[in-house]
């Protein structure tokens, strides 16, 4: 009789001799072993899941005030591209921690700062001073000078940053890529006609 057959025989005998409710010692030990693994697994899973979820933070956790430079570098009545370093970054981010935004100086101390990201799917919009329009190269979204939606697929106007002027410098509250899930619900942009507000 080979080793295999002996083992099979042994299993059969155990199964036959046991009554329906009894649990053999081996199966009980295996059950305890499985439970032990489950407990250890759950204990190890907690730190693993917290590690995995660490990038997800509340809306304002990533934001801080960033300077775009002296307000004199933005002429009144014009819209210009400004660049800044993202306040949150890592040493190996390379060029990707640089961010661009459109600064519109309406009056001496009145500014509007728009994200370059189209409110549709995030492509970089370009400003055309001649026609006073922002146009998106991807799917053809267009916005008026005040950031409100002019035409195309976007559901709302351009994303805006909160601004303040500190010691002659223009500062914006920035730090994360604006999307419909964060910046969108914070701002409300009037249509140029002053009609129904286009809420994000």
């Amino acid at each position, binding site marked *: 009789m080979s080793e295999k057959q002996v083992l099979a025989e042994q299993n059969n005998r155990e199964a036959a001799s046991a009554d329906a409710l009894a649990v053999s010692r081996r199966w009980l030990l295996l059950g305890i072993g499985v439970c032990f693994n489950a407990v250890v697994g759950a204990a190890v899973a907690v730190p693993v899941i917290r590690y995995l979820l660490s990038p997800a933070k509340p809306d304002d956790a990533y934001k801080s005030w960033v300077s775009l430079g002296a307000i004199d570098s933005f002429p009144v009545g014009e819209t210009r591209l400004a660049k800044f370093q993202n306040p949150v970054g890592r040493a190996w981010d390379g060029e*990707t921690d640089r961010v661009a935004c459109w600064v519109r100086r309406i009056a001496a101390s009145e500014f509007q700062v728009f994200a370059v990201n189209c409110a549709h799917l995030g492509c970089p919009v370009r400003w055309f001073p001649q026609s006073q329009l922002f146009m998106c190269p991807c799917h053809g979204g267009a916005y008026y000078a005040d950031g409100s939606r002019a035409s195309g697929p976007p559901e709302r106007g351009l994303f805006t940053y909160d601004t303040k002027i500190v010691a002659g410098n223009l500062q914006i509250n920035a730090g994360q890529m604006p999307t419909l899930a964060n910046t969108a619900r914070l701002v409300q942009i009037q249509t140029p006609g002053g009609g129904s507000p286009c809420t994000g």
Partner: protein
Amino acid sequence: MHWLNRVYKWTDSRLQLGEPIKEMALHPVPNKTASWWYVFGSAAFVLLMLQIATGVLLALVYVPSAGHAWSSLNTLDHQLTLGWFLRAMHGWGSNFMVAVVLIHMAQVFLFGAYKYPRELTWVLGVFLLLMTLGMAFTGQVLRFDQDAYWGLGIGASIASRVPFIGNWAVHMMLGGPIIAGATLSRFFAFHVFVIPGMLLAFACLHVWMVLKLGINEWPMPGRVVRRSTYLDEYHTLTKADGRPFVPGAVWKDAFFSAAIIAAVAVCASVFGPYGPGGQPDPTIIQTAPKPDFFFLWLYAVLSYLPPSLETPFLLIAPVLGIAGLVGLPFYAGEGEKSWHRRPVAILMLTSIAVTWGVLTHLGTFTPWSPKMNAWSGGPPIPTRYTHPASPLQRQGAIIFQSKQCRNCHSIAGAGGQRGPALDLVASRMTEDQLIRQVLQGGGNMPAYGKNLSPSEVTALVSFLETLHPVNEPPATDASRNTAAVVEPHPHS
């Protein structure tokens, strides 16, 4: 060769793989399945092997760091001996793999191969397709050029539309608040470890099931699949009209796979590697990002959907699509396999293929995008449009060019296609309608009322009024004529 035999025997007496492999190789397959129609699955598997091999070779040099990825690819392309060829093989291998997987899927769908007992083989195949597309997308990200950067932006924008957990989803996708180092690292981990590991394991299971359940027989009209009788019928068929898989059927697989790899190599050497395009500096906004070939259809869909439908479509359509594919074998697990008796299947496949083709074709030239440089970089308005014109009309032509009208409207075949071509606009719109359209916009056009002075509008519209065929007068408002006739006699 005696020693070779001894080595084999020594190894296999320990490895114990000889018998099962022999059994698989010699299992009988129906004679009619030894066909050139049955070669796509094995070709997809061979392409997966090619991708793994070339991927490992590229990983010897590639640096998965946001600061260096782009320059390491340029080093591969331009400084390392034949680095460009390996990149090209991997890039073209990816194209061929997506294409072959899709063709394979269409073929097994047409041949009814998803029916009993091969439902799970089909379901695994659906996951394999999704993972192949996942590899194509993450691979495009690893190229880490401008297109990759803004493509990630589009991905994040789509993720942000998920209700309630949108912001969370964006952070998880990007690994932080912006597209940066953490983003590339996690896409690298997915492209190199997570997805390929699953892809390989699933592909092996898929092949295992094909070998164990037997290849789908050639569908014959009237030979209906029934759960109660199918297995017996299949075994009778393979016994009566079958041949061993090796070499009876596999030689065609071998030929086709070699041809496909040769085709990848030819494309790689003729067309070269993909990019990388511009450097991933987000402050360089003079860019028009575009996805890779197999996502162009999606790019087109996103442009043509009405804004209100976009979020529901993006979030619901993929779920329905995947559920439909997975559910197919459970809905139609029995019945006719032959395409002669499955008109709905043929119609579905044809309409999906035609839709996909049209959308992809549109994606190659993006008529919905404004041509950002058409007003400054394209050809000027031809003199035949301005030569006979009055000074006011010529002034209008200048305004037409300088106010970027041409970014969306073409004239004489040059300019954007976002709006209608304006060569004949005067014959379909009256002066008043033109003024209204310019001032108020609408129908996808921005309003220019604030951005043009009244005299500029007058000049622009007087130019647009000249755009009609020589022998056809411009459209006029009939009531204007009446008014003109009536005016001299106000008291009559």
